[in-house]
């Protein structure tokens, strides 16, 4: 039985209809597979030992901070017991304690505001990713705005912001006082609530963050908060080069 030319054409059309999606299918499968395999190779070859080293250093830092806190507490106890011996020692102890409170070395509790900052959730066009995620500069802008609004104490995800604190960014990882953290960020700010809220509501301030919230879905919210607890700074004071004049 021989096929008519019309039947041949129909078969050819059917084959083409299947061929084009099949080629595309193959292309996509291979792209997907290559992306996956490149990532795995890199991870195995370089990242695993580096990742282990970074985690080990972070764990070491946590235990060093505990030791540091214990020693500070012990020195405080010795000072306090000495301050019962003389009036001068007692006066000195009061001054030290006041200064520790001002410098961020004592825990603070009180009312204020909480700011939450988070990457946009849900799908975002690839070209807009940078605008939809939080950067360390967003956190420095928020901290700056909080001090402007009269903040007395600030902590980001439990890390107290003091005179030596930096909000550092490596790749997509953010580090505050040497502690690695990732979104969502919760910034606890103790201070006068109305002034702080007005400072964050000011449309001329944090324009970039607010625009990215409205257009790209960046998570940014400021809310009134009561009974906030801001922990003390637990890192090194690191005064080695500077001498008082």
């Amino acid at each position, binding site marked *: 039985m021989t096929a008519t030319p019309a039947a041949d054409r129909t078969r050819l059309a059917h084959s083409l209809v299947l061929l084009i999606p099949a080629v595309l299918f193959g292309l996509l499968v291979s792209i997907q597979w290559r992306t996956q395999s490149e990532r795995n190779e890199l991870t195995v070859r370089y990242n695993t030992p580096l990742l282990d080293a970074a985690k080990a*250093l972070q764990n070491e830092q946590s235990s*060093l901070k505990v030791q540091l806190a214990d020693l500070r507490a012990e020195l405080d106890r010795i000072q306090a017991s000495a301050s019962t011996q003389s009036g001068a*020692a007692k006066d000195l102890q009061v001054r030290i304690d006041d*200064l520790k409170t001002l410098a961020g070395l004592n825990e603070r509790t009180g009312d204020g505001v909480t700011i939450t900052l988070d990457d946009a959730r849900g799908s975002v066009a690839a070209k807009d990713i940078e605008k939809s995620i939080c950067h360390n500069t967003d956190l420095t802008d928020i901290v700056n705005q909080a001090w402007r609004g009269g903040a007395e104490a600030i902590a980001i995800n439990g890390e107290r912001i003091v005179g*030596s604190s930096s909000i*550092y960014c490596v*790749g997509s990882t953010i*580090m505050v006082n040497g502690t690695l953290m990732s979104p969502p960020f919760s910034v606890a700010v103790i201070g006068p609530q109305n002034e702080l809220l007005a400072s964050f509501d000011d449309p001329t301030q944090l324009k970039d963050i607010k625009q990215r919230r409205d257009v790209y879905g960046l998570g940014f919210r400021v809310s009134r908060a009561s009974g906030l607890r801001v922990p003390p700074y637990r890192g090194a004071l690191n005064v080695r080069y500077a001498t*008082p*004049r």
Partner: protein
Amino acid sequence: MRSNAGVIAVTVVALFLGVLVVTQIQAQDVYSRSLQLETPVSLTTLIANLSERNNAIKEEILDLRHRTDTAREAIASGKGSLTEGERQLGQLRVFAGMSAVSGAGITVRVDGAFDERALSDLVNELRNAGAEAIAINTARVGPRTHFGATTDHALTVDTVAVRGPWQVRAVGSPEVMYVAMTRTGGIIGQFQLIYKGTRFDVSKESVLDLPALATPLR
């Protein structure tokens, strides 16, 4: 029949195709922050930074152990612990920006257009590089210092206007801070790309004298 089979085959393939296209698009759009996905370069930088911080804490632990022992002995011998207390007070006053300080460090000179967010980023970068005390022109930066701008292009440090050219002086390790500022892809390099007409100079200094905070913390 035959034509129905063809339609079904095409539909199945199209469905697969649809699923794959969507998967591919999603893969590109989901931003993951897992440490596992950092590049080896980023991880190496992170490790160097963590290591530096851990060393600083270790040094302080050694110093505190020594001071704790000395204070304990002083009390036991009836001398009291005024010396240790005074030392602690001195250290805290430097840390809180309450005393004028001297020491080695670096100066970053900025001449031209600049803004308060860049100034805040520069201070953040200096702190990350271990700056112990920072001043902008004659205004000392404290733990609660904030930056702003006036309508006539001056910047403000704790509401006090500071006018350009700006001298940002930082006491700390001159080598570490100099490299942190001037490295390829570092903050000064970024500033030079953004503020094209502005001149940025970084120099190491053997002695810098910085004032105390003009308004002490309360």
